[in-house]
């Protein structure tokens, strides 16, 4: 009896494996074939949304060997910028001034999501620094050179 039940369970699991295989291929044909012809950058925009062009704009505006203090209100911006901006060193904060140490960073970057209710107020001392303002999709990016 135990052998029969054991065999039945194995047959069931094997059959479920075959079913998953067929379902995966069906899903591939239905949803994923068009992706083959898209470039990696298009796919990144699809998966990361407008955060990706924001990070790319930081990349083109900040030199390689710099360190930046990045203020933004979401973790995705944090990790993506850390990843794509390397060798620039990114220190992330969700608030404007917490942990900020003068002399430790070359740039101070504030990313405002214009759709969000949370708006960053730029600290007074930063207003005298040379800066760039860039708009990408629903983001306002302010880059201050320290």
């Amino acid at each position: 009896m135990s052998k029969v039940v054991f065999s039945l369970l194995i047959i069931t699991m094997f059959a479920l494996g075959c079913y998953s295989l067929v379902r995966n291929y069906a899903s591939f044909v239905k949803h994923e074939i068009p992706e083959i012809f898209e470039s990696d950058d298009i796919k990144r925009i699809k998966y990361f949304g407008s955060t990706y062009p924001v990070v790319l704009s930081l990349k083109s505006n900040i030199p390689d060997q710099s360190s930046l203090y990045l203020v933004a209100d979401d973790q995705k911006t944090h990790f993506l910028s850390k990843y794509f901006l390397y060798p620039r060193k990114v220190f992330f904060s969700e608030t404007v001034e917490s942990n900020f140490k003068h002399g430790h960073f070359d740039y101070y970057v504030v990313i405002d999501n214009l759709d969000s209710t949370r708006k960053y107020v730029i600290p007074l001392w930063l207003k005298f620094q040379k800066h760039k303002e860039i708009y990408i999709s629903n983001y306002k990016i302010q880059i201050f050179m320290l």
Partner: protein
Amino acid sequence: MSFFIGLISVLFLSGVGLLTLRIINIKNTKFIDIVGYSLPLGIGFVSFQLFILSMLNLKWTLEAILLPWLVIFFIFLLLNKEKKIRINLTKPKISFSHLVLLGLVLVQMFFVLVESQLRPLITWDGWATWLFRSRMFFIDGGVLGNVQVFYDMDYPVFLSIAESVVYFFLNRIDDRVVLLFYPAVYVSIFVLIYSFLRTRVGNYYALIFGFMFISLQIVVRHAGRFDAGQADLPLSLFFLSASIALVNYIKTNNFKYLLITFLISGFSTQIKSEGLPFALVIGLISNVFILKLKSYKYLFLNLVWICPIVIWELYKVGHAFPASFHFTKGIYVYFERLPQIFIGISKELYVLRHWSILWLLFLYALFIGFTNKRVFYKESIVLLLVAVLQMLSYIFIFLITPHKLDVYIPNVIDRLLLHISPIIILVIALIYSRVKINK
């Protein structure tokens, strides 16, 4: 073109593993029986080599990666030029059912390969840790302790080092091609399961159980549909290969298998933190058998798995890595959490979309085992012991962690179970083969 260069880089890692296996030279084994160990050994040796280069302040280049292995390879060829390489050209007997099963396995592997190359890196784990560091190592030409400290990364580095090897072959960062690494791990796991089971339950069932494992959706997801953790499937490979080598050591009392066991379990400590309890578990079981088999001279081999741990810990001390903030107030064991932990684990066992009925099958196999002791024997008991002790180490972590368990367990439990799941499929297969014989 990038795809093929990426493929060559992964084959290089495997090739280094094969070379070391040829040097270790286990007698009376077929290629299929040792090839499964090649990727974990290759990852371990090449990462160790590059880590040592960084400690010596030497920059990594493709030449620096390749040269030592080419030298070793040619010395090996020179020393063995008398020995003829025998290639068995006799046509293996393959029945139609074997061909169908093999076809299913290959179709499954092809799917995973295509999925892995369909999109660039899209996972949090990848940006935050594993491939972020590969990117870092490629750009910096090595592991820079100060950068690791800046990003507060005290996680082991071997996996990221091994993945950065792909970038050195490509001479640029390509975070789609690098994902070829995962189908390679996937294939290696299948090969290990198949090669272990074929001599114990026969080719036919070895293919069936191998397919059952690689068709689990959680495994497919980790190998190809990359929306999950990045170090967990490689860790499964290390756990599986070390456990199989341990079983082979116990079966043959051949110290070469013990050496492989210790090498792979030592390397696993540098893949992910969970490798540390695993190395302790393997060390404990191995030493029990060393004493039981009165092979006292093998005790010194323990240095092999202890060495990578000591080097990494010294490196962290040397670079003043900040201490973990988790246990600043000391370690307290919250035994009252046990019911919550068991409920959390049980809930995951029955997630069909991850595990199919693997755990139901396992529980049934255990039930059969405990009601009919004849179906348990040394090999299945050792594998079961490894899996159970590893799981107990995770339960212990749950008992002491300062994280909130209602969030923490659902976040990690599928990955923790993934680490031991290939060992579980072996236990099921071994028990099933005994049930078949006994009835």
